């Protein structure tokens, strides 16, 4: 092996062995516990017990040896995904849900690799920004043509009836960020930023027409944060936020549906049987879990509506307890912090903004749904990234994380080249 190549590898090897080991131990213990349940008769938990830790080890080592990616992010992403599979296996009445989630996760791993490959291979972002934007708008509008209503929002499209439905707003998150990063990079003047902003506004408008309020909020806040990072124009961003707040007030006045949500959030106990039902049940679940949880598979999280998707955080809190849930939040924080380091180390403003946008939307989404589950914020129907049940969200988040990892690998290679160059200069005697 060439000397430079060896040095590059050595630089990339952050010490993540301990992290990987503890994640695998957690997975083995939790899945082992589920497989050993006395009422368990099917081989499915046993399959998971073998497959999940093996996949984790394989993916972490394989990807780490192909590209110098940030392994900490990679391992934590896999950890979150396995927490989702474990919780679903413990709380769902049938095996179908965790089985589909495991299949989605497998697809997600491919998306992860695809993301890295895409980011490393994509150099001509300027040229593709416009077609990508068009694709994004088309995809977001598609539910109007081939969509169906789910829980009061028309944000799903049917690929194969009753078999495969897809949520375009999930898949378009990384696309939105790529388009915005391409539009905002290289410190453009305000006028040059207008087309991407108009594009983001159009996206929000389409989502609003489909009543996917959670996605609207995420797209909007991510756009504002990315524009702030790119332009340092705090005043304009503040104005944007104020506009958003104004729109929220108008929405509150005009839509009884929104008023209802806010009233239920402020005092769910006023109407615990109807409007406040979800949140009262969620709080009861969290309270029943207490500090250390009811125990894996021992709680009754199914009393909470949407216990497997929007309210999975309460399921985790009930089964694993408060301490673990706080730990889960800490894992999100760690991914965000590592992600921001990736963004700050990136060599071009495009890569930097992309990494930043991916981290921002990931963090905001986690914050929105955790806040909604714990009665800190009004509930918005978004998924807990990588944990909630749902193929679209899982695969798309894996792809986004793949993009982030791709950027981290580019950073590492650049850094290695720099160091090599300095060393060479020294040898030559300059």
């Amino acid at each position: 092996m060439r000397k430079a190549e060896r040095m590059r590898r050595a630089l990339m090897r952050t010490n993540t062995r301990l992290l990987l080991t503890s994640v695998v131990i957690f997975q083995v213990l939790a899945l082992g516990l589920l497989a050993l349940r006395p009422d368990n008769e099917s081989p499915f938990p046993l399959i998971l017990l073998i497959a999940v830790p093996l996949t984790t080890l394989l993916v972490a080592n394989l990807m780490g040896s192909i590209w110098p990616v940030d392994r900490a992010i990679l391992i934590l992403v896999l950890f979150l995904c396995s927490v989702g599979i474990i919780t679903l296996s413990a709380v769902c009445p049938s095996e179908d849900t965790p089985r589909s989630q495991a299949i989605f996760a497998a697809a997600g791993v491919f998306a992860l690799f695809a993301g890295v490959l895409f980011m490393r291979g994509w150099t001509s972002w300027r040229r593709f920004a416009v077609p990508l934007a068009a694709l994004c708008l088309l995809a977001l509008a598609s539910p109007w043509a081939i969509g169906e209503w789910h829980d009061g929002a028309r944000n799903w499209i049917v690929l194969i009836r009753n078999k495969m439905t897809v949520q375009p707003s999930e898949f378009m998150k990384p696309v939105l960020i790529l388009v915005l990063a391409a539009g905002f990079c290289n410190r453009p003047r305000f006028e040059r930023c207008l087309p991407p902003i108009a594009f983001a506004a159009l996206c929000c408008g389409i989502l609003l027409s489909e009543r996917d309020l959670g996605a609207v909020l995420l797209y909007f806040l991510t756009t504002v944060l990315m524009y702030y990072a790119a332009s340092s124009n705090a005043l304009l961003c503040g104005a944007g936020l104020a506009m958003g707040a104004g729109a929220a007030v108008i929405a509150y006045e005009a839509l009884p549906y929104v008023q209802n949500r806010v009233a239920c959030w402020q005092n769910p106990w006023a109407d615990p049987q109807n409007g406040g039902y979800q949140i009262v049940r969620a709080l009861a679940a969290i309270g029943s879990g207490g500090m250390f949880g009811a125990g894996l598979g021992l709680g009754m999280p199914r009393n909470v509506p949407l216990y497997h998707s929007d309210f999975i955080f309460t399921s985790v809190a009930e089964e694993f307890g408060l301490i673990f849930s706080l730990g889960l939040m800490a894992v999100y924080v760690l991914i965000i912090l590592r992600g921001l380091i990736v963004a700050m180390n990136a060599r071009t403003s495009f890569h930097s903004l992309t990494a930043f946008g991916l981290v921002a939307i990931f963090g905001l989404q986690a914050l929105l749904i955790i806040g909604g589950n714990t009665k800190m914020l009004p509930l918005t129907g978004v998924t807990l990234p990588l944990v909630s049940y749902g193929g679209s969200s899982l695969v798309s988040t894996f792809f986004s994380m793949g993009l982030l990892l791709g950027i981290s690998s580019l950073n590492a290679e650049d850094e290695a080249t720099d160091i090599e160059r300095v060393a060479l200069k020294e040898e030559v005697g300059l």
Partner: protein
Amino acid sequence: MKELRRNMRRVGYLVLALFIGAGVWFGYTVYTQGDAWASTAYNPRLAHTNSQRGDILDRDGVVLATTNAQGERAYLADEAARRALSQTVGDTAGMSGSGVENFFSATLLDLSTSLTDRLVELFNNARHVGSSLQLTVDAQLQAGIARLFPEGYSGAVCVTNYKTGEILAMVSLPNYDPYAANAAGEGVADTAYLNRCLQGLYTPGSVFKIVTLACALDYDPAVVQQRFTCSGVWEYEGGSINCMSGRTSHGEIGLQTAFAQSCNVTFGKLAYQLGLDRLRATAEKFGFNENFKFGDFMIYNSSFPTGVRNMNGLVWAGIGQGEVLVTPLHMAMISGAVANGGAMMQPYLVKKVETSLGQVTRRGESRVYRQVMSADAAQTVAKYMYGAVKSGTAKRAAISGYTVCGKTGSAETSNDKNVATNAWYTGFVYDDAHPFAVSVVVEQGGAGSQLASELASKALKLAIECVN
């Protein structure tokens, strides 16, 4: 790029702060309110839990609620007694929200036991039995008072021990049969689920004169010498006030007689003399406008007007009309404070919590809530209240052989003169062996000097007989 990194760092700090805030909020709320969330009646886990509810006992150990061999909840066998205790004990359907069954679910089921205890039980394969709760209430007394309550009226009677703060009886009528409690609202009037002692906000009327008097004594002890003139009606700028619809005039009158005769004109003038700020300060010292947080039950907050700036509002507030609202338990706390040398005791309902293994995890403790007035002022108010029983409006509250002090009230709740007033009485027995305070409301029971005073006397007599 440098600027970009700086901006990103800023956003990073912001997101980090938000996450830390969310974590702290989450941890704090679960830590402080988790048990309350878990113990609401809307938690279906409670019905399915493996753990068996502990018993509820009265102060003498009479079993008010238990789980029988079939695993069903059983209450007192005697229907009248069961109904009398309904809102205090509560029901498994959780209809009476402040009832012990609902409010103390988590304790009765012991959801909050430690991890090790739970593991031990898991390995022994034992059915978990929750803690039992002993209340300060006397079942015999409470059932007896409910029996004495005038037929056909609604209202509340509250008996407390003013030296310790123990609640001895909380009678609220109408009541319901806990076996019949259901969420669908069949067969039981909605208001029957309400514990009027804690959640009935009533206009106090003349019983509030205790507070007005305490205020006057606090600011000027010489007020006891002052003479007032009552011509039956006092007309002032912007309104008028009268005694018994203007039919009686008390003439020239001292404060003590005015209190005993419950002269509205005198106390209206006194309130005007004091001014709203002073009166409000004293009322707030007595617990009005305060967010009561007593650990054993949920009580509504009494209120004294804060926004009134005209003379009419002030004068009427001075005699407990207008926007003044109070719960019967709070009124019993007020007269209890008079009896206890100005020290208002914090009321409590749970005497003892005992785990299934016999370990006492909590005991009710006597705590002074606040010194609401000086011992001297309390002495004077008590003397005035004694006068009201001896020779004033509260004559019927007297019990032979005991020093009884009290104050009546006839609270107007409607501008329509055909609607009977709410009859109020509050008072206490001055007796070291039986330090009992009482408050009585008979809704639309007419003048406080009639039904309410009589009932209070009977209730205290019963308390002296059966509470030890």
